[in-house]
């Protein structure tokens, strides 16, 4: 099980990074569209007016919630093998724990952990073992690159001890899913992990948005 060792300190970003200044400063970081996009995506997850830290923690929670549902969906399918189950079920359990951990972080950042949006996985995307694994792999890669894209926005050193173990664990998840893809998989896509913007993460996950 995932544990938050020694309690979770309150996490804040730089004082000047309140919501308004984020919207102003986001342009320099290439995040303006992402933040706006997040608010356009008017699911419950983005409907409130959180401070920036809570906003980002809710965003991370939303992505991990999507991964959690994707693993749940895949592991219910009879075409997944016992070895798949052995390796993927623990990942799903970790995702459940991350979703809960992010809920705590949102609240400690002064926000409200909102209801996760509905997700939708059509049969076309996960209709056999390999397509399931491809989807899981692409979501894991998206999540990791998104995490690395957000590191530059964190100014409070207290965030780093929280984030590092999760990011490192997620890299392990991604490598294992890629291994299951055998010849199609790439456990080590680059010598140094690549990063993407929030906007790119949103683009990547928007196709899975379902209707509640």
């Amino acid at each position, binding site marked *: 099980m995932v544990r938050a060792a020694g309690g979770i300190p309150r996490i804040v970003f730089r004082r000047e990074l309140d919501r308004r200044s984020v919207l102003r400063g986001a342009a320099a970081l290439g995040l303006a569209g992402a933040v706006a996009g997040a608010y356009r995506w008017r699911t419950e997850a983005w409907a409130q007016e959180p401070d920036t830290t809570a906003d980002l923690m809710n965003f991370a929670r939303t992505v991990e919630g999507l991964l959690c549902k994707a693993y749940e969906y895949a592991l219910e399918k009879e075409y997944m093998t016992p070895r798949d189950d052995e390796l993927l079920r623990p990942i799903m359990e970790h995702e459940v724990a991350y979703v809960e951990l992010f809920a705590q972080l949102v609240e400690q950042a002064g926000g409200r952990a909102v209801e996760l949006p509905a997700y939708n996985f059509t049969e076309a995307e996960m209709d056999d073992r390999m397509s399931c694994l491809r989807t899981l792999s692409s979501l894991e890669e998206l999540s990791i690159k998104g995490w690395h894209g957000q590191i530059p926005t964190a100014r409070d050193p207290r965030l780093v001890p929280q984030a590092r173990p999760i990011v490192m664990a997620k*890299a392990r998840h991604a490598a*294992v899913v890629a291994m299951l893809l055998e010849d199609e998989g790439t456990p080590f896509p*680059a010598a*140094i992990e690549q990063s993407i913007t929030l906007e790119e993460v949103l683009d990547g996950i928007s196709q899975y948005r379902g209707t509640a």
Partner: protein
Amino acid sequence: MKRRDLLRGTILGAPLAAGILTAAPAAAQEPRLSTAWDLLDYALGLKYIQAEFYRQGNAAALLSGREADYLNQIGYHKQQHVAALTSAITAAGGSPPVAPGLDFGDSFASRESYLGTGATIEDCVLSAYVGMPVAPTFNTGAATEMSGIFSVDSRAAAVLNVLAGRPIENGVYYGGTIAARDQGEVVAALQPYVTGPWSMAGTAGVTS
């Protein structure tokens, strides 16, 4: 390593170099790992061990097929990490520590010992990164790049643990989060492989 890859390593090191250019040089009596220089020294010390481990292990030709491909790629990435960190230190006006002498004992006696030792070293290095203090003197690009280097280590750790047949939850996934180790614990764990002066043990180090 091909020349273009070496050049690529230099490019990869640029954000790190930019990061430590903002750092004050380490004072003689400062505690360990208190500056960006210390962290780069520490990171490079770990990478020396990993790069040499895979160089020797892959040369022993213990693996075949996909396993060999994975380990060759892991070894190649470690060389790139060494190049990136070395380049960063040099570009910022520092002198990288000298690589220590290394002896991995019976690690290359068999496929199992190679994969098992590799998994142990990867897990140790990853715990070292999780246990590193935050360097306030790193710029954001440098922090991202350091994280990116060790994230790739985490991928290697997972693959090696799978290949070595280690338990899923507490081996492959390390319990879903990665425990931190401080520098003393990491040095103690890796010291058996080191045969000479070693920056991480305080017997050689980055100069700035």
